[in-house]
């Protein structure tokens, strides 16, 4: 189907003014992709994945080497149309690839460009929409769709061209877990039922476990190519390219190290459960365990318990009482977004605010610094009512720093330093104070002085985000609210951002509110979680308390970390675990303990 020989691609990079240099994005790629396969291309940001994808659709041409699609050389100008018919392409940003002003218009765009007769277009549009399960939405405007539905529309648009192969460039990077699942299901179905070759580009390792072949890329080269089993057998290699592994894979590895005979790699929850069930029924004894280590870890797990009584004594910074908010009051589109929300944020809190898209997270967030005003209810900052006429909202915005989603898109400054100083200057600091504060914040987020006079637009994605965070930190807030700080980042950059949050919390002693739809992140970092559902707090508590409610969380489609889900299922199977685990480490200890107890029981 696709044949790539020695593909080299170089980008031209403009250094200042007239100097230009070449940067190699793809460095001698050779690849064969057979028809009907499901291929996953895995790699960190900047590994050349997207560049490779663009070559398959002739959006780029090779600098050297050749790409054949179905036997047609991509350099052949005359075959361009045919190749684009064979290989369809879905991009990352759902918003920017929908052309039509309604779902069916967008799907019809491809066939219309081919000048097909109207009846045929109508049939193709209906068939494609049916295939992605959106036929009932055909007249809807794209703005009324969820992220997952938008991506499915984009897939339908590609399908309408009857492609033999679909290339998807990080199609789920900007989606919430529910939408992600929808999109992946559609892709897998198209592969199995319609026999369409799928090339999925991603940096989510959990999306690749079901692929036929995984191609691991780094720095423009193919590092390894093989079945998911082969790839995940080499955790060292994956770590080397800074990729995550699914939580169950990691757990299985750790258990194996502790002496439990599990065949690794384990890729799915089912496999892990089956493997553990096998070892259990064999009544195998453990070898090479270190009891000392266990007690050490147990103490760590108990840490949260000992801290909690102290929590009550901490100062309350922000307090909300009975907040209600309705969008578009008095119009047809009137929607109740917040419905009697009460909360308290204390000094030193790390709160995870969780909810699906449309649960009211962002609206609640905007209430915290007075960007939105509740219809009823009160908010107090350090005991003073912020809805009081004399209360200065600008003052509040200094105390409650808000970092929006994709904050790097909100940068504007000439230099990194001036951008960071914007907030402090607005809040009435003198130039010197602002500069000092900005410099300190930049240092904290790890942007060193050599970048201070550089334009923020020249930085990498992760760096830009750090600068944007520094811009809010420079106002020296007491509460830092962040909306999806890790959205669209690869695992390594994501980890750096979260480590940064921990550091900020420790050094600045401020409260952090992390707004997210990724349970994994919240479980690892937050010590309190608020679950928002249809404008109400459905659950609040520590991650541990919360994740015992696995059923409820899954019901409202928030989902739980894979590790929680798998330990819960093990419990159901009768495995001796007391409660679902929140982190991999915790699960490891629980299972080891379970084995030990079983052992004692035997003897």
């Amino acid at each position: 189907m696709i044949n790539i020989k020695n593909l080299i691609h170089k980008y031209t990079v403009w250094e200042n003014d007239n100097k230009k240099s070449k940067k190699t994005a793809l460095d001698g790629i050779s690849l064969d992709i057979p028809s009907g396969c499901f291929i996953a291309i895995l790699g960190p940001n900047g590994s050349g994945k997207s560049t490779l994808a663009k070559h398959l659709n002739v959006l780029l041409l090779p600098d050297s080497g050749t790409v054949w699609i179905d036997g047609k050389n991509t350099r052949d100008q005359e075959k361009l149309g045919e190749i684009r018919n064979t290989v369809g392409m879905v991009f990352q940003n759902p918003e920017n690839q929908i052309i039509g002003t309604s779902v069916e218009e967008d799907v019809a765009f491809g066939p219309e460009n081919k000048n097909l007769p109207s009846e045929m277009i109508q049939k193709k549009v209906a068939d494609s929409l049916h295939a992605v399960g959106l036929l009932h939405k055909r007249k809807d405007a794209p703005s009324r769709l969820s992220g997952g539905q938008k991506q499915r529309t984009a897939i339908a648009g590609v399908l309408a061209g009857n492609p033999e192969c679909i290339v998807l460039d990080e199609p789920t990077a900007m989606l919430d877990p529910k939408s992600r699942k929808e999109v992946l299901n559609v892709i897998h179905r198209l592969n199995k039922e319609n026999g369409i070759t799928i090339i999925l580009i991603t940096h989510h390792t959990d999306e690749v476990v079901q692929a036929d072949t995984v191609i691991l890329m780094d720095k423009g080269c193919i590092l390894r190519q093989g079945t998911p089993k082969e790839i995940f057998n080499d955790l060292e290699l994956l770590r080397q390219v800074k990729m995550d592994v699914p939580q169950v894979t990691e757990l299985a590895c750790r258990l194996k190290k502790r002496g439990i005979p599990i065949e690794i790699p384990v890729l799915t929850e089912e496999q892990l459960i089956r493997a553990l069930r096998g070892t259990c029924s064999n009544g195998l004894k453990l070898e090479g365990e270190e009891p000392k280590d266990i007690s050490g870890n147990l103490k760590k797990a108990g840490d949260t318990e000992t801290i909690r009584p102290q929590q009550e004594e901490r100062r309350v910074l922000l307090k909300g009482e009975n907040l209600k908010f309705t969008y578009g009051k008095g119009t047809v589109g009137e929607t109740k977004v917040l419905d009697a929300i009460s909360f308290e944020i204390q000094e030193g809190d790390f709160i995870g605010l969780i909810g699906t898209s449309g649960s009211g997270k962002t609206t609640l967030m905007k209430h915290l610094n007075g960007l939105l005003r509740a219809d009823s209810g009160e908010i107090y900052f350090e005991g003073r009512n912020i809805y009081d006429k004399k209360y200065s909202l600008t003052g509040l915005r200094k105390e409650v720093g808000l970092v929006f989603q994709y904050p790097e898109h909100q940068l504007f400054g000439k230099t990194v330093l001036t951008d960071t100083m914007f907030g402090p200057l607005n809040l009435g600091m003198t130039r010197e104070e602002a500069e000092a504060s900005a410099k300190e914040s930049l240092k904290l987020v790890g942007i060193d002085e050599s970048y201070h006079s550089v334009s923020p637009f020249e930085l990498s994605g992760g760096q830009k985000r750090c600068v944007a965070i520094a811009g809010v930190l420079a106002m020296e807030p007491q509460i830092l609210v962040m909306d999806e700080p890790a959205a669209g980042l690869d695992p390594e950059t994501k980890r750096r951002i979260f480590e940064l949050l921990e550091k900020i919390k420790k050094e600045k002693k401020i409260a952090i509110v992390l707004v997210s739809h990724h349970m994994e992140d919240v479980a690892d970092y937050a010590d309190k979680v608020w679950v928002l559902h249809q404008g109400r707090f459905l659950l609040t508590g520590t991650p541990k308390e919360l994740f015992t409610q696995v059923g409820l969380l899954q019901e409202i489609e928030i989902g739980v970390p894979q590790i929680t889900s798998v330990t819960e299922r093990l419990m159901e199977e009768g495995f001796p675990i007391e409660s679902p685990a929140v982190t991999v480490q915790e699960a490891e200890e629980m299972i080891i303990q379970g084995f030990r107890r079983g052992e004692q029981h035997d003897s």
Partner: protein
Amino acid sequence: MIRDITIGQYYAGDSLIHQLDPRTKMMGVLVYIIVLFLVKNPWWYLLCLGVILILYYLAQVPVSYLLKGLKGIVLLLFFTFLFRLIATPGTLLYQWGFFSVTEEGIVKAIGMTSRIALMITGASLLSYTSTPRALADGLEKAFSFLQKIHVPIHDMAVIVMIAFRFIPIMLEELNVLMDAQAARGAEFEKGSFIRKCKNVFTILAPLFLSTVRRASDLAMAMEARGYTGDKPTSRMYPLTYGKNDKLAYSVIFLFLALSFFFTIV
């Protein structure tokens, strides 16, 4: 304020009016506006209001949408009314310093205000009942004769369609940016003129950048789906006149003829 913009707001439906060819509807709006300027007798406005109400009823668009269209121009209407009222010479009714209210002024004020309001409600109905795509197609077809003198009318239609698609997205983005900068202490209402200009820049620069980014993404998506811009294309729903369109044209021209007859005679 920014959320009040109603251009390109399509009210999904399948009514008689929705089904009409966009060209018919555009012609209807054109004739309707001509009539509004032609007639002198205020009773005609009442008749036009009646026609509009009937059309909204036929289109099954709720009357609240009619009012929503007017909300955006409420200031314009108010000032039109005020200036006509106080600045028309004629039989004096009331004098207050420099300003005077005259009999003619009242008539003119009511007439002018209703004319504008009626125009807007009529034009809104067109956008409520036709998708932006249909409008773009309609314009393309109606002006296709310009292609003969090398006016790139098809490209223009594509541009119009993309504009309609991206106006709401950019407005949304503008809102996000304003919120984000407000969270960093920017105030768009207060401060000196220079300060305000500076704050606007903090929004325009990222908005411009993201627009360029979007445009480049969109261009790639269009190209990947076979758009070249020079090859002939077809339509999923080609524009064809139906029986109702003929009927509608008859009604439209009858309306025009009647108004001619009554204003000239």
